[in-house]
């Protein structure tokens, strides 16, 4: 049961090989082995979405995924969104519209928003709320988050003036 396995992960464009328990949570491997601590744990049971990451483009709760299952997969965490220090438009919108308060749900929430806008480029408010319903935030009442996503989606069509 305590046998370790080798797992290869393509995280934020970089290949990592780690030795871990087959049933170790992807969340722990990302945080502890890869030191990608922007991935947060809120509940450990797939309810709050703080540990959301993109696996091959899908939005996934990394606390529910055994590391072995992610072998060979391409993973994006919050650290992968602004690799050169240039904020993604969603990150910028979160700063401007107060989408982050305590910040603990923010990485997961931003990744959920990224996934939403990749699926629907200009969502309605209802679609935004639906797209973020798997991510819990206790600080904002979601209002400023919804507003940030609205602005970010508008920016797809109208790039900000220089």
């Amino acid at each position, binding site marked *: 049961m305590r046998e370790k396995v080798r797992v290869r992960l393509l995280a934020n464009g970089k290949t990592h090989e780690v030795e871990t328990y087959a049933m170790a949570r992807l969340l722990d491997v990302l945080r502890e082995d890869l030191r990608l601590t922007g991935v947060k744990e809120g509940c450990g049971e797939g309810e709050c979405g703080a540990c959301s990451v993109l696996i091959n483009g899908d939005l996934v709760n990394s606390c529910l995924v055994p590391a072995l299952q992610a072998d060979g997969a391409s993973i994006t965490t919050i650290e992968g969104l602004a690799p050169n220090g240039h904020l993604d438009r969603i990150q910028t919108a979160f700063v401007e519209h107060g989408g982050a308060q*305590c910040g603990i749900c923010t990485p997961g929430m931003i990744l959920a928003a990224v996934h939403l806008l990749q699926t629907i480029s200009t969502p309605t408010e209802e679609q935004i709320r639906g797209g973020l319903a798997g991510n819990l935030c206790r600080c904002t009442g979601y209002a400023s988050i919804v507003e940030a996503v609205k602005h970010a989606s508008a920016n797809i069509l109208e790039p900000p003036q220089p």
Partner: protein
Amino acid sequence: MLREKVIGRPVPRKEGLDKVTGRAQYVDDLTFPGMIHGVTVRSEIPRGKILRIEYGPGIPWNEFIIATAADIPGKNAVSLILDDQPCLAIQVINHAEEPVVLLAHPDRYVLERARLAVRIVTEPLPAVFTIDESMSGKTTVWGEDNIFKSYHLEKGNVDAAWANADYIIEGDYETGAQEQLYIETNGVIAVANPHDGVTVWGSMQCPYYVQKALMTIFGLPAEKTRIIQTETGGGFGGKEEYPSMIAAHAALLAWKSGKPVKLIYDRAEDMAATTKRHPSRTRHRTAVTKDGKLLAMDIDFAIDGGAYATLSSVVLSRGTIHAAGPYSCPNVRIRSRAYATNHPPRGAFRGFGAPQSIFALERQMNRVSAAVGLSPEEFRRRNFLQTGDTTATGQVIREKVDLAGLLGRALEASSYQIKKEQFAAQNRGKQAVRKGIGFATFMHGAGFTGSGEQHLKSVVGVEATAGGRVRILVASTEIGQGTQTILSQIAAETLGLNYEDIEIAPPDTASVPNSGPTVASRTCMIVGKLVESASVGLKQSLIQAGLLAGGYTADAFRAACRSYIAKFGALRSFSQYEAPPGIRWDDERYQGEAYAAFSWAAYVAEVSVDMTTCEIRVDDFVALQEVGRVIHPVLAKGQIEGGVAQGIGYAICEHVVSKNGRMINNQMTNYVMPTAVDLPPIRVFFEENPYSYGPAGAKGLGELPLDGPAPAILNAVENAIGRPVNRIPLRPEDMMEILNA
């Protein structure tokens, strides 16, 4: 003075960039060389005697660090108001999930198996779980009478008033426990040894509370007890007092092992073991004349404090003072008690007793208005406090207050009259979904109650750096509400500098003064005012030293700082709290200026009630308030929206289920908080009315938004279904009982 440049502007949150990039370091993101992990073994029974502790087979116990009460170097008490709560239970258990044994080991997975192998052998004793059981006195579980604290407040002559009443209306109201549900659970890392003392990094609201508790537990002086707040993922009161407990546990394991110990609760443990909002019961008896003037209010307010005193006395105090609300009534009696039960101790949660008593009051006011035959809004208009009137504690309202105006604007913003008529017509048939609209009017006092701030004597510092920037020194923590940003705005405005020129020191008891706890809607109004006055002091030092002249530029300021530091070594300015003039408080009679300032509000909720599924949906929410000057429009709006969301959860979905004193729905799966699809648009409005003694005129606003949603929503539900609803949470199953009754 120039036009304000920084106050009132939506400057970027100081730590915003770190938060949106995932760089912000919360305690669980930190790791120390040689660090091991800790866990807590807890009682399963609510009350009993500890007979012995058994360490089961199959575990290499010699690999573990094991700590019990016997390992505590100082006093076995989590020092707060009373020292009745042990750090680790010894001999007796007073609530389920009470900590008894601590374990540490390098491997978290091995640690969890070991935790399950420890057995606390107990002999159960009878336990009490409700206010009624505690009040009956059949089983004494705390002190002589199960009462942590009681207050009795009298204004005028209530007994003489009943005879003159045209109507006397009675009502009983209940509120449930509520979990703070910060998304980051409680956690700390401790390094400790007898030579250097104790250092703790952790998620917390009040570093100096943790320091005080650890000094008692370890018998150490302040200079050997160092507490550092790490980025904190929400608090809402839930990290006011509990961090003292978990910090002490980690520090004990570190003290015994000589290694850094990380202790992080998982969600289930955090929900089961840590504090909740106090459940309450309020009984109202109200005398009113036929033209709708309040004659007398007799209010009995009781809260369930759980097994130890913790903060119950002060939660009760705030609940007591807010129980009569923003109304002018000549005769008021409020009797209140905090009772002991065998639940895990209740504790601080945003609003701190006021949401409980205001819920009861605002339901009662609707019932009184119905009895008199007035609309709820007209009845309130006839009774609102005006400038010059006195509150229940005899406090004269000196500042301008215009509750009728606030209510009028909130009703207009929500199209209240139109909707009320429209819904009444719509609801006449046998509708599958009924609509309703309701409101609540209320206030919330900012800062500590009564003489609290005078006792705290908070200190704030500002210092110039060698680079000519200004650094704020406070123990007030950023927990998401915007402390760092608003305090920087206040300093920048006062010093005539740019927002970017201000930085804020990390809250570390070794390097910042005690600016008091981050609680009680006090950070902006009280601490912010101290930042303002310390900043004035800094500026005057430069002027008096002849290094700066009036009308200076930012560059001139920087040069002056550099010269001052070169000449004198350091430039610091401190400011200590002094009460505004005319503040007096009688702790015995509970009379006087309960709060230096109140924020005032009118909230309107529109709801749908599904008559088949019994679900309640909040369709629209208007939150209008007067909080003095708004320092930061985006952050202030965010505080209100978040507070309203928590209030909506409190009203219709958040329910703590306990069995034999243990929380059994201690998961996010079955303790239901609102998601993005459950909440309506929350429309926030501020009326600005600068407060004479606040920084740039600001008052407190953090807790206010928790007070209004529950009564506004239940008033709307009553409007929809035509039946009284007097208990929260009002879940579909509760609604079904009411509709079937």
